[in-house]
């Protein structure tokens, strides 16, 4: 660490732009030796972090991206990408996207309702505190334990399935199966809804009561308030939350894996099966192409989000 900095005030950054020109401009701005040294010293504090991120995150991702275009001998090829975008793997991408769309939009709406229900309750209200705490807890709940919880209740020999059958409602007779896409959607709702409550609540709290009062004073009805004031203000945050839920559903692996024993054709599960060695030798790099595909989908979702948000921001002006 930089222990030589002891002069009072020098620990804190000058902050104001331009107060430290050499440092602001970096070594390229003013190519003097002391300037470059000062810049290096300033940056030194984040070098360990930068190195860790490079080794633990950046290099592995580069390895995936490069591997997607390599044959097993290291030659260049498009065959992995082509295999990843055809047949069962293309199907996997579609299933993953369908799943993610359902498990981002449904929880977004229901989560917004719950959040609004407790938002209108008074601050310090017990119910409100309980819902917030429970959301924090449930949003963190996933993976294998969650899968077993649902197998015990809604699985083919689960207790709820059994009770429903006793009152004459055969859940599995209506095409529902916990081990198929419909089941995975229900299970994902269990952590997606609370996640939505947590992320949308701060945005709701940003709606000032004064705006509503102002709207009412000007004669706006409830729906008019939401159409012209509340809705447009909330929209960017709402879209951001939907994107977050989309990414969360897309990259979820453990829950679906434990629920279906890895049989459901979702991209995350397919990538996992390449590592588990359940694939023909010589095709390992298809897994990397699938991984690259997932990253691309998330990147596209983020670009759409940024564009939507820009439009929404225009209304806000």
């Amino acid at each position, binding site marked *: 660490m930089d*222990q030589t*900095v002891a*002069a*009072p005030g020098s620990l*804190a*950054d000058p902050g104001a732009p331009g107060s430290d020109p050499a440092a602001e401009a970096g070594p390229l701005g003013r190519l003097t030796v002391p300037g470059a040294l000062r810049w290096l010293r300033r*940056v030194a*504090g984040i070098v360990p*972090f930068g190195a*860790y*991120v490079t080794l*633990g*995150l950046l290099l*592995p*991702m580069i*390895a*995936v991206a490069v*591997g997607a275009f390599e044959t097993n001998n290291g030659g260049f090829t498009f065959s992995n990408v082509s295999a990843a975008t055809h047949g069962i793997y293309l199907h996997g991408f579609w299933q993953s996207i369908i799943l993610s769309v359902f498990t981002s939009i449904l929880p977004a709406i*229901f989560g917004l309702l*719950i959040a609004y*229900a*407790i938002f*209108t*309750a008074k601050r310090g209200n017990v119910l409100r*505190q309980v*819902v*917030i705490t429970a959301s*924090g807890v*449930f*949003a963190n709940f*996933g993976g*294998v334990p*969650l899968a*077993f*919880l649902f*197998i*015990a*209740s*809604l699985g083919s020999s*689960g*207790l709820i399935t059994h009770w429903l059958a006793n009152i004459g409602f055969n859940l599995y007779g209506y095409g529902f199966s916990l081990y198929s896409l419909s089941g995975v959607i229900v299970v994902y*709702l*269990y952590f997606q809804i609370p996640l939505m409550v*947590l992320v949308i609540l*701060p945005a709701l709290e940003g709606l000032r009561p004064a705006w509503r009062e102002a709207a009412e004073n000007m*004669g706006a*009805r409830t729906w008019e308030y939401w159409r012209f004031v509340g809705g447009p203000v909330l929209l960017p945050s709402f879209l951001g939350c939907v994107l977050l839920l989309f990414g969360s559903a*897309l*990259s*979820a*692996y453990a829950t679906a*894996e434990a629920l279906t024993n890895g049989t459901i054709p979702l991209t995350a599960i397919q990538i996992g099966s390449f*590592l*588990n060695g359940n694939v023909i030798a010589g095709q390992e790099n298809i897994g*990397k192409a699938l*991984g*690259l595909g*997932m990253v691309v989908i*998330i990147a596209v979702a*983020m670009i759409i989000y940024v564009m939507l948000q820009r439009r929404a921001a225009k209304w806000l002006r």
Partner: protein
Amino acid sequence: MAAVADTQIVKAPRRAARQGAPRAGTAWRWVVLLIAAVFFLLPLIVALRFAGIKAFGSVVSEPGFTSSLGLSVRLAVVTTVITIVLMLPTTVYVHLRLPGIRRLMEGITILPIVIPPVVLIVGVLQIAPGSLKGTPYLLGLEYVVLAMPFAYRAIDAGLRSLDLKTVTEASNSLGAGWVSTMLRVILPNLRTALLSAIVLTVALVLGEYTMASLALYQTFPVWIYVNSQTSGQVSVAASLLALFVTWIFLMGITVLGTRQSRRTGGGSVTLFTVARQETRGN
């Protein structure tokens, strides 16, 4: 003038009608909350019944329980130590000397959330040196990356609620060096934030399944899954146990977090700063 008066007269009954509205609104609110309560509590209660009381006792004596739990706890300790040692000085440093890159830091630390862990582990297994691949500590090192978003946000929120510049300047002008400022001024002020970071990291490591199973290490969640082939009831019981322990942890920080925010009036470490999903092994 007349027109204005006119609209006001017309408004009056409409407002009166709206006075009745909140009652309907309240009913709707209760219906939503009731549905949510059933959806979230029913599977829990049912799973408790499914497992039965006896299964809880036999979890401990299952083969592999001790070793897998031991591995998970060891990984949690390693990950937490590295995460704090790496992220605390970095975050403080960024706040003090490079506030300009705070947005960049936020962007970088969001990456482990955006990138699916299943993709990340593919790359990690590809580039990790063989000597590291043979030990489970490879997982620990990679969990540090997964924990970064939570640790950074928790510490960042803690630093924001503290007037860092004034505090360090005061400490410096009283003659304290950088190390002593860090240990005796900043650290005590960040107790809650650090506690949140630690709890979240521990919860993450104890619950992570994706990377552990794909790197072929039998951590506790992996053991629960493998063991389910022999006894479904015991696995459900083990799942519930794992859950309750994590919940107690998380509830603890929520309570602490609210107390802290009440004390400092904002800048609290909310659970969400933290409770992002993907990395928790879903």
